[in-house]
């Protein structure tokens, strides 16, 4: 298993798409966070009623899409090139292959996602500090929300990996993961009434993003993350079953 993980790490670090998507995730988190913070400060000054943590993490939806894209291509790329046959000839135990790829991807996404989340938070707070209104990691729930940013990005990446493994076709998998993360919550918003509102809380990113909020707006933070991971688990399990059955 360790051997296969080392192999997957070599594959992941040796292509440009990894650098590009991770760079895009970090860059978008930072730029959107800083611009958002500057905009809020210029409009409301240091005394408005805003959530400094949320504003500094405003890049999360973009970062999530970048991570999800990387999740898709780390596996669909092997099908696109046909390299999957080289991989599976080397590692005939297909579940071991999928597990190794998932572990390596998770570690990379977690490290980069958490770093990006902290960088965006700190940069945003540096803007607010000019007005004497910066939030601190020592404030209640802030540390959990900033760490939560990294968790949310990682879970989004895993949703991409699951869709990539299931669909095996890059454009199809990317469209699917965007639909799940961005379109489904919009569609769910048309649901009205108490039941409609409850359903909305359980939809993909509506649930998953609660972990990134100091003041959750739906499910409790960890419950929301667990629900999001369930959205990941379903395509992942189907993909694993099909991976064992299908011809490579």
């Amino acid at each position, binding site marked *: 298993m360790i*051997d296969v993980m080392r192999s*997957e790490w070599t594959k992941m670090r040796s*292509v440009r798409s990894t650098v590009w998507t991770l760079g895009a995730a970090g860059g978008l988190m930072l730029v959107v966070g800083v611009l958002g913070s500057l905009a809020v400060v210029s409009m409301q000054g240091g005394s408005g009623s805003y959530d400094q943590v949320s504003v500094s993490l405003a890049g999360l939806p973009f970062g999530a899409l970048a991570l999800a894209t990387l999740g898709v291509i780390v596996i669909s790329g092997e099908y696109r090139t046909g*390299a999957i046959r080289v991989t599976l*000839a080397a590692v005939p135990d297909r579940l071991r292959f999928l597990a190794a790829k998932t572990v390596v991807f998770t570690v990379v996404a977690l490290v980069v996602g958490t770093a990006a989340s902290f960088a965006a938070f700190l940069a945003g707070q540096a803007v607010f500090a000019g007005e004497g209104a910066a939030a601190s990691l020592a404030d209640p729930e802030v540390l959990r929300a900033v760490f939560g940013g990294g968790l949310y990005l990682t879970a989004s990446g895993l949703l991409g990996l699951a869709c990539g493994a299931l669909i095996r076709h890059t454009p199809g998998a990317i469209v699917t993961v965007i639909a799940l993360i961005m379109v489904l919550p919009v569609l769910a918003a048309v649901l009205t009434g108490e039941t409609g509102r409850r359903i909305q809380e359980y939809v993909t990113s509506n649930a998953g993003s609660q972990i990134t909020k100091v003041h959750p707006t739906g499910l409790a933070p960890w419950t929301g993350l667990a629900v999001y991971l369930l959205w990941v688990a379903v395509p992942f399990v189907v993909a694993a079953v099909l991976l064992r059955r299908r011809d*490579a």
Partner: protein
Amino acid sequence: MTAIRATNLTKRYGRTTAVAGLSFDVKAGQVTGFLGPNGAGKSTSMRMILGLDRPTSGTVTVDGRPYSKLEHPLRKIGALLDARAVHGGRSARNHLLAIAQSNAIPSSRVKEVLEMVGLGEVAGRRIGGFSLGMSQRLGIAAALLGDPEILLFDEPVNGLDPDGILWIRTLMRGLAAEGRTVFVSSHLMSEMAQTADHLIVIGRGALIADTSVAEFIGRSSQGYVRVRSPHLTEVASLLPDAELHHDHLRVTSRSPLEIGVLTAERGLALEELTFVQPTLEAAYMELTKDSLEYSS
């Protein structure tokens, strides 16, 4: 010693049968050619050997075990299926390193095989910029990584220039001389005549012949004696089975000596009396003419 054994191997895709009840043994320590027209089921069979495609029925084993039960398969069997099926953005070195790591092969081996196939100079270059010949060499380097006793090549000379073809031929003979088993597919009989000791010929997914190269020629296509003479009609009347071809006769039932004696007794002068060896190509065409998927 059997390196690869297929037993009643069958693969259907929907209503199309790619491989139909194929059984054969690949013996260890020699070059076995896997021959058949395009679409005969060679690649599908090879993918099943490597556990990539699941047989509809039947089994195939490598060194007595199903491929999926091999712990570090690349140390037992190395394969080149499609040289272009690689991520073009990776360097040759990283491509091989990832494969080596997956089978716990020391990373020093990467440099060794790159030197072996003549790609040492371009180890750090992106594979995407490689020519077909270089890609083919890289694929062979990957197959050799685990120093395996069995090698499997699918159409390795396709699209190569004469230098490349010669290189692959020499390599395959060299590998067999080291005692390794080489199983190589081709749709070109002439190619196999140069390299193989043994032939497994298939057509439309079924076995046509499983024989040594020498036997294959002898069994499937007879030689004939070519006779030219100013007195062609008289000569023909002495040889009941002679066939007239343009300006000469083809005789299959008698040796040149018998024909010479016969015509000498009648005082008939001969212009030519030649025994024509059958070629592998002719034998192959003869055998597979019924099993071409698309006949021209």
